[in-house]
C-alpha cells in the first residue's frame, strides 16, 4: 500500500467524521466546519487515489486547487449569511423552537403571521 493510498483512506475517514458532524450538529458554524471537513476528505481521496502508483499527477492537484477556492467562496458566503441571520434573529441554529439566545442581543422580530 503506497503512501498516497493511505492519504486516500484518511480522506475516507475524514468524510465519515465530517458527515456525522454535519448531520448531528445543530449549531450552524459547526455544521459549516463539518462541511469543510468533508471537503478536505474528498480532496484527499481525489489526489490520493489518482496518485496511488507513486507518480505525481498534476491534474487532480489542479482540480483540488479549484475545489479549495470554490469551498472558500461557499464557506465565506455561508458565514456572512449565518452572521446576519444571528444578528436579525438571535438564533444560531435553524431549529426555531430551541433558540440559543445570547442575553443582551437583539430579540427576534415579532411578526403577526408566524410561519409553520
Amino acid at each position, binding site marked *: 500500500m503506497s503512501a498516497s493510498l493511505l492519504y486516500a483512506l484518511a480522506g475516507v475517514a475524514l468524510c465519515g467524521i465530517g458527515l456525522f458532524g454535519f448531520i448531528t450538529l445543530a449549531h450552524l458554524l459547526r455544521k459549516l466546519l463539518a462541511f469543510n471537513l468533508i471537503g478536505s476528505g474528498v480532496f484527499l481521496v481525489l489526489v490520493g487515489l489518482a496518485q496511488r502508483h507513486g507518480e505525481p499527477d498534476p491534474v*487532480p492537484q489542479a482540480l483540488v486547487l479549484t475545489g479549495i477556492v470554490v469551498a472558500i467562496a461557499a464557506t465565506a458566503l455561508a458565514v456572512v449569511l449565518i452572521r446576519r441571520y444571528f444578528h436579525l434573529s438571535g438564533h444560531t441554529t435553524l431549529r426555531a423552537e430551541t433558540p440559543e439566545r445570547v442575553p443582551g442581543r437583539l430579540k427576534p422580530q415579532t411578526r403577526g*403571521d408566524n410561519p409553520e
Partner: protein
Amino acid sequence: MILGLMAGLLFTPLAWAVLTLLSGFERSRLISWLGILIQSLVSFALWAAVASEGGFHYQLGGWPAPLGIELRVDGLAVTFVMLTAVVGGACGWHAGIYLDPKKNWHRYFWPLFWFLWAGLNGVWLGADLFNLYVALELISLSAVGLVALGGQADALRAAIRYLMAALLGSLAYLLGVALIYGQFGSLSMGGISELLPAGSGQAGLIFALVLMIAGLALKTALFPLHGWLPPAHGIAKSPVSALLSALVVKASFYIAARLWLEFGEHLGSYGLAQLVGALGGVGVLWGSWLAFRQTRLKQVVAYSSVAQIGYLFLLFPLSWGVSEAVSLQAQQGMTLQVISHALAKAAMFLAAGNLIMSVGSNRVDALAGVSRFLPFSLFSFGLAGVSLMGLPPTGGFAAKWLLLQASLGSGQWWWLIVLLGGGLLSAAYVFRVYRASFIENSDTDLFFHPSRSLEVIPMILALLSLGLGLVAEPVLSVMALPFSKGGGG
C-alpha cells in the same frame, strides 16, 4: 459561424454579469434587457444550426479531451439552452418591472441573474465531470444569493438551509467524480463511457454512481431530500422563485439523467432504477398532498414543484433494461416534462407574485374577490395549472402520455398509478386556489393593480406551455439528434 455562436453564447452572460455589477438598478435593467435579447437570439441561432447540421464537440482552449475540456453541443443540450433563454428571459424581464428600484440592494439581482444563466448553460453543454461540478457551484451560489437578496430573517433561514443542502449534494457528486477519476484517469464523460465495458473494479464504480446520483437528487429535491425546497422557493421574490423552480432544480437532474443514460447501462441495476423511480413516485403523491394543505399561495406552488420533479425521476426505471424505442419514449417524455414544467411553473410563480402584490397578502384565503379584479393573472395561473394537471393539448399531457406509453411498453404498469394519481391531486390544489379567488368577499375592495406588462409575461409563458403539446414534434426531433458524422469543432 458556429464557433462564433458558441463563443457568443459563453461570453455574453459572463460579460453582462460584469457590466451589471458596475451599474445601478435602472441602468442594469436596461443593459440586461438588451442582453436578454442578444442571448436569446444567439441561443435560437445555435438551436437552428444544430437542427440543420447536427451536433458537435467544442474544445475549449483548443485542447482535445481528456487533456482539455470539451463541450458537447447535441440536440438535447441546445433544446435546454433554448428553454433557458425563453424562461430566463421572461423572468429577467418580469424582475426588471417587479423589483423596487428604490431599494439599492436590488441592483445585485442582475449580476447574480447573469451568473446563474452562465452556469445553467455550462451544465447543459458540459461533458466534463469536473467542469459540471464547477458549473453546479456557480448555479448554487447564485441561487442562494438570489434567495437571500433582501436579507430578512426568514429569507436568510431559507437561504442557509438551501446552501447547506446544495453544498452537501455537490460534495457527494465530487466524491463520485474522485472515484471515477481514480479508476479511469479521465474526466471526459464520452471517453469514460467508451472505457466502461472493459472496466474492472465494478463495485467501486457502482458506489461512485450511487453517490453522484444521491448528491444530485439532494440538489433536485427528490423525496425524501426535499425539505430545503419549499422554504427557499416560497420565500424568495417571485421572479427568483420562478427561476429556481423552472431551471435551477432541472440542472442537477439533467446531469443525473446524462450520467444514467451514459453509465447506467453498465453500472446501474434494476433495483437502483426502481428505487429512484419509487422515490420519485412518492414525491409526486406526497408533494401534491402537501401542496393541497398549504395556507400560503407561494408555498402551494413550491410544494407543487416538489411533486412535478418526482415525475422526472421516472426516467430512471423507464430507460434501464428496456428496448431502444421505449427508452427513447421515456427520454422524450422527460424532456417534454422538463420544458412544460419550466414554462408552467414560471408562469405560476410570476402570476402568484402579481396576485400577492394585488391583494397585499400571501395567504390563499386572502385571494377572495381577486377574480373580478385581476382576471388576467388568475387566468395565467389557471392555464399553467392545466398544464401541470396534464390535460390535452398541453405539454404536460404530451409528456405524461409518453411516459405512460413507456410504462406500458416496458411492462412497468405500476407507474400508471403515479401518473394518474398525480394528475388528480394537482387538479385538487389548483382548483383550491381558484375556489378561494372566486369567493365574493365584501371586506376587501382595496386592490393594487400591478402594471400591464407584469401580467402579460406569465400569460405568454402559460400559453407556451399550453401549446407545447401541439409543437412537440419538431422539438423532440431536434432533441434526439445524433452527432453528425465527421462533425467536430
